[in-house]
């Protein structure tokens, strides 16, 4: 076995192990961390395939931003596990059927007939001067420039839609005027009242 194969098997083992651990973790925060480990293993596998740009982007986007927000939400929610597990047995047959269908589909689509070594020979190794990011950019901005920009516009629409939905109700919105806050003077907030102090003779 070459060193590359050993690294591949170690990373694949970590990938599968962390994915399973994520599903079986009882604590939601731990599940997120196992998912992060899974992303790291996947990114490392991609680096092994000389796709370093995709690998780094996976870490930057999913580990650096998406999973942080996941953790953020999990921390603020008080997840009640008993209600989550209450209907577990009832949903089990349905879940098993769906899982079996997905496994069957994946073997059909991703099996040896489509991705075997006869159909897809292992890609040739590139030299040290091969730049994955340049090759990808050339493809993305020439051949696939319209689909690429359409995807970008779609994301923009999604962002605008989400913000519009949240800001629909003007009445409940709390707003602050920063210029008003900055320009505030002491006499606007504090009222100095002079009270005649009772003299000592009256006591």
């Amino acid at each position, binding site marked *: 076995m070459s060193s590359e194969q050993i690294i591949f098997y170690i990373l694949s083992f970590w990938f599968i192990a962390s994915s399973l651990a994520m599903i079986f973790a009882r604590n939601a*925060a731990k599940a997120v961390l196992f998912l992060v480990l899974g992303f790291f293993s996947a990114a490392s596998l991609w680096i092994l395939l000389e796709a370093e740009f995709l690998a*780094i982007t996976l870490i930057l986007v999913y*580990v*650096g931003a998406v999973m942080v927000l996941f953790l*953020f939400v999990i*921390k603020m929610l008080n997840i009640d596990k008993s209600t989550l597990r209450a209907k577990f047995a009832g949903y089990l047959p349905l879940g098993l059927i769906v899982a079996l269908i997905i496994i069957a589909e994946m073997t059909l689509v991703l099996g040896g007939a489509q991705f075997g070594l006869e159909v897809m020979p292992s890609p040739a190794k590139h030299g040290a001067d091969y730049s994955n*990011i340049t090759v990808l950019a050339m493809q993305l901005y020439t051949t696939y420039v319209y689909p690429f920009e359409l995807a970008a516009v779609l994301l923009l629409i999604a962002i605008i839609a989400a913000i519009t939905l949240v800001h629909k109700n003007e009445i409940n919105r709390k707003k602050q005027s920063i210029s008003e806050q900055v320009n505030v003077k002491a006499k606007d907030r504090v009222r100095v009242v002079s009270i005649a102090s009772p003299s000592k003779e009256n006591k």
Partner: protein
Amino acid sequence: MMELWQSFVLGVNELMPWFDGNVAAIVIILIKAVALIMPLLLTVAYFTYAERKVIGYMQLRIGPNRVGPKGWLQPIADALKLMTKEIIFPSKANIYLFLLAPILAIAPAIAVWAVVPFDEGIYVTNLDVSLLYVLAIGSIGVYGIILAGWASNSKYPLLGALRSASLLVSYEIVIGFALVTVVMIAGSVNLNTIVADQQGGIVNWYFIPLFPMMIIFFISALVETNRAPFDVVEGESEIVGGTHVEYSGMTFAVFFLAEYANMILMAVLAVIMFFGGWHSPFEGLGVLESVFAWVPGIVWLLAKSTFFMFLYLWVRATFPRFRYDQIMRLSWKVFLPMTIIWIFVVALMTQLHIGPWFA
């Protein structure tokens, strides 16, 4: 010596045939890593000393002056103190995550340095996507803070972690957009290429066409490293010590190391992106260039970074802490639109071939 090394390499290759005879490469990488990490940790130690001294003089005090001559041994004494202190675990805290948090803070802070070029050809690895690597690995550091807050099972750390998560995520976007302009000029995401592209004197450095981006990058770096005036994550007067409240001894020291390693990294990055990296400021100035030709590039890089490190301390001694919501407003409503506008400005400058930067 060489014979010993070669026999060692041969012996290891025979013992471990699955490395394909790459043992020598692995050993060299390890040696490089040690040669990088040891000075880095020493710099961190003396950066804390410099911080106390500089802020002391700015506030008309002397600062530490008891341990060793002029207090030179103060950081060593601090390290010894932290090492011998007891590590206290909060009751009902999640011990595994509680101990994982400082590791997740320090590991990315050190791993990022693998791609930083110190001089022409002096780096641990020359990654083709090194700028993205810096951003990606840098964004992992936030897990340390979030987990520290969550695993401590305590109110103040949780509040600090919530603040830090939202701050770091928003300012990462700003830093990313600000660095997009650098990438647009250099035409590369390789830090080596970015520095090499700034050759030829001060006018070629990127801080001239990207002046607003340089300011935004530095301010965002202050937020990313939780420094004053944006240190709401551990604001003493509001949430005691934020995420570090429950940490003591070495676990706290590791957070401390990570924070200062990140500060030094941000200073070095600012130099690499905007101030010509290892290039001498006297390039293209005739006599001055030849007078300073003997100075190695790494000296210029470190000298320029030292200025930015000093700026951190200067800012901390000067400004009061920002209010939390104003930091968020600064990110989303001021910096982000500015960076996006400047991307269009840079695109225009590229089209018009302005100056030496877009030739």
